């Protein structure tokens, strides 16, 4: 008996992923963080990252950031490309523009903000759609999924290796640091009370840290099976909600990183979605 291969529903996924990315772009627009809204920042911060260096040496971020008409054209082209990708799922031209556009947007924003943010979910999820052949898309999508597994698993291993897991006061100190300026303005209320309680009870807060470390490490399961993807997804969303509530780390841009754990094949059966034509 030959096992039937179930492919990912590329078309349906393209519409959802680029729709999701479009919502993120709308969020950027509503929060004054598209390139044309940044008011031509003057400082750059390439850090020691080779990718940033390469682009800055050829002056691409400077050119995009310093010329309003160029940055406006960039924002418009990126947004239109993203919309086209939602509806025209079997083409590569606009997908390339969207992928290149979000990477440039990310590098320009981080350079101008003076910090290289690790929120790169929206940079990775669109990449597999550059492949039109079904089997290539499937491998790329699985590759992104493994990369996400590696990302969280390595974060868990780092917490063990660098001693954060075993240091009893670690989470209390992290919370003090992350909430120092927040408490100037929000010293009352349920959230403030919970944060204060956890800072004053390092034993409890450190167990939360250890739980987060176990969530990171649990993603190792994802290397061997997809059976538990729903649980991993739930654990990761809870982990990021906890980070948001206790440490004020947002994850809207990062939210696309959860996409590889969604039950796409089940949805495809439910919605009778077709694969790519190729």
């Amino acid at each position, binding site marked *: 008996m030959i096992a039937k291969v179930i492919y990912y529903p590329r078309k349906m996924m393209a519409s959802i992923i680029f729709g999701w990315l479009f919502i993120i772009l709308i969020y950027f627009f509503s929060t004054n963080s598209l390139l044309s809204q940044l008011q*031509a920042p*003057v400082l750059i911060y390439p850090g*020691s990252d080779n990718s940033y260096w390469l682009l800055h040496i050829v002056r691409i971020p400077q050119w995009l950031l310093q010329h309003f008409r160029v940055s406006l054209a960039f924002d418009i082209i990126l947004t239109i490309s993203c919309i086209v990708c939602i509806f025209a799922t079997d083409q590569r031209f606009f997908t390339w523009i969207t992928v290149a556009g979000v990477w440039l947007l990310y590098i320009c924003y981080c350079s101008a903000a003076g910090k290289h943010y690790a929120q790169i979910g929206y940079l990775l999820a669109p990449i597999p759609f550059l492949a039109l052949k079904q089997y290539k898309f499937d491998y790329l999508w699985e590759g992104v999924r493994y990369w996400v597994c590696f990302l969280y698993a390595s974060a868990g291993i780092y917490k063990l290796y660098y001693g954060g897991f075993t240091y009893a*006061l670690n989470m209390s100190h992290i919370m003090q640091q992350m909430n120092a*300026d927040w408490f100037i303005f929000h010293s009352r209320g349920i959230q403030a009370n919970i944060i204060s309680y956890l800072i*004053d009870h390092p034993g409890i807060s450190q167990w939360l840290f250890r739980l987060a470390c176990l969530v990171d490490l649990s993603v190792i399961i994802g290397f061997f099976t997809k059976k538990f993807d729903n649980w991993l997804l739930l654990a990761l969303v809870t982990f990021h909600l906890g980070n948001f509530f206790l440490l004020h780390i947002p994850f809207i841009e990062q939210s696309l990183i959860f996409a590889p754990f969604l039950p796409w094949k089940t949805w495809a059966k439910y919605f009778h979605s077709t694969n790519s034509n190729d």
Partner: protein
Amino acid sequence: MFLKKVYLQWRSFFWVIIFALIAQFFFMAKGIENIPFFLYHMFSYAHQPKDSFNVILIKTQDGYLDPHELSSRESEMLMNNIPYFNQIKKNAWKDFLIPTVEKRFGNRLPMDIYNHLQGGLVNDSMAFSNYTSWWQRYFKRVYNHSFDSVSVVSGYVHYNPGFSKSPVDSIIFTCRFR
């Protein structure tokens, strides 16, 4: 299993994965972040206790502005480059990246190419002198306000237990709107 399937069906992608894995481990070993090969430390180090925490605040005639009222993207763009600007100011307006550029390219390239590379990577005096004007423009865009002036200040917050802010601030720069 995945790699075996990729090797059999799509050889070029297999080698891309192998290259990416080697690159990731190389950069992890070297401690270099190289997008998309991130070092996701995610607070992995043991954080030692601190007596006080440095905070950057916006001070108006009505008191401090809460940057958490803005979206995270706005407050990041408005607030996160200030410490960088302030450090360079304390460093006599010399960009901290100059020694790194020198280490990587110094004495290896002709002077004109080296100067061109450095010009693309470090902030020059023009960038520093225009910084506060840019900051003022972006501040006006994200805050609906009618302030005559605002100052960006550096202060300290203590925890003992409970947070308390030291009353002394040092001004980094002031923007006048009228």
